[in-house]
């Protein structure tokens, strides 16, 4: 099968809408299709990666467990926008996953190299 570069751009916060969760489902399928998958988190998307989600009170599944499964699917290219973290008072220590931090311009270059960019 042809392998293409798929980037999933996550710009939305978790839980307030379902986009982030359903996006994650596509990421896992793309990885199962053995595509070259990366995930980029910018703007409110960085909140998806925040450690310590306790979602019992709102009765929805938490992200952390599924994020943990990404490595099993060989999804290791997790890119985060530095400016979005800083704007929100976050550092990589606050995140649930090991990530690579880039400037917005560097992320722009990475986006440009992709075959398919999916945003939800």
């Amino acid at each position, binding site marked *: 099968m042809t392998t293409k570069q798929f980037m999933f*751009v996550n*710009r*939305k916060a978790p839980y307030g809408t379902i*986009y982030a969760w359903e996006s994650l489902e596509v990421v896992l399928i793309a990885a199962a299709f053995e595509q070259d998958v990366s995930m980029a988190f*910018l*703007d409110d998307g960085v909140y998806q990666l925040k450690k310590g989600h306790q979602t019992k009170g709102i009765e929805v599944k938490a992200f952390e467990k599924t994020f943990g499964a990404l490595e099993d699917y060989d999804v290791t290219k997790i890119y985060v926008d530095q*400016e979005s973290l800083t704007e929100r008072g976050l550092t990589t220590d606050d995140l649930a996953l090991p990530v690579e931090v880039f400037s*917005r*311009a560097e*992320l*722009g*270059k990475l*986006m*440009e*190299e*992709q*075959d398919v*960019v999916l*945003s*939800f």
Partner: protein
Amino acid sequence: MLHIINKSPYDRPAFYSALKTGEGAILLIEDGVYAAAKGGVAEAKLKAATDKFKFYALTADLEARGIADRVVDGVTLVNYAGFVDLVAEYKTNQSWL
């Protein structure tokens, strides 16, 4: 690459967020076309970026919103066929939803 923006810059940061990626083309559609209207705060931001980005806006969406007669200079108007051509022209496109 081609960035497709469908959000008003007065509501959500998609337009400004895309501008920060560096360079390329930006197509304004749906509520995104408000970024191309003269006289607003977004005008200066758009004009400051014309050396790095080519700007396009979808005519039908400008007309629907009553702002087709006040488009910032330097923004090229396209119809749906022009939208298709832009997508074909650039290898990569991203919708800033």
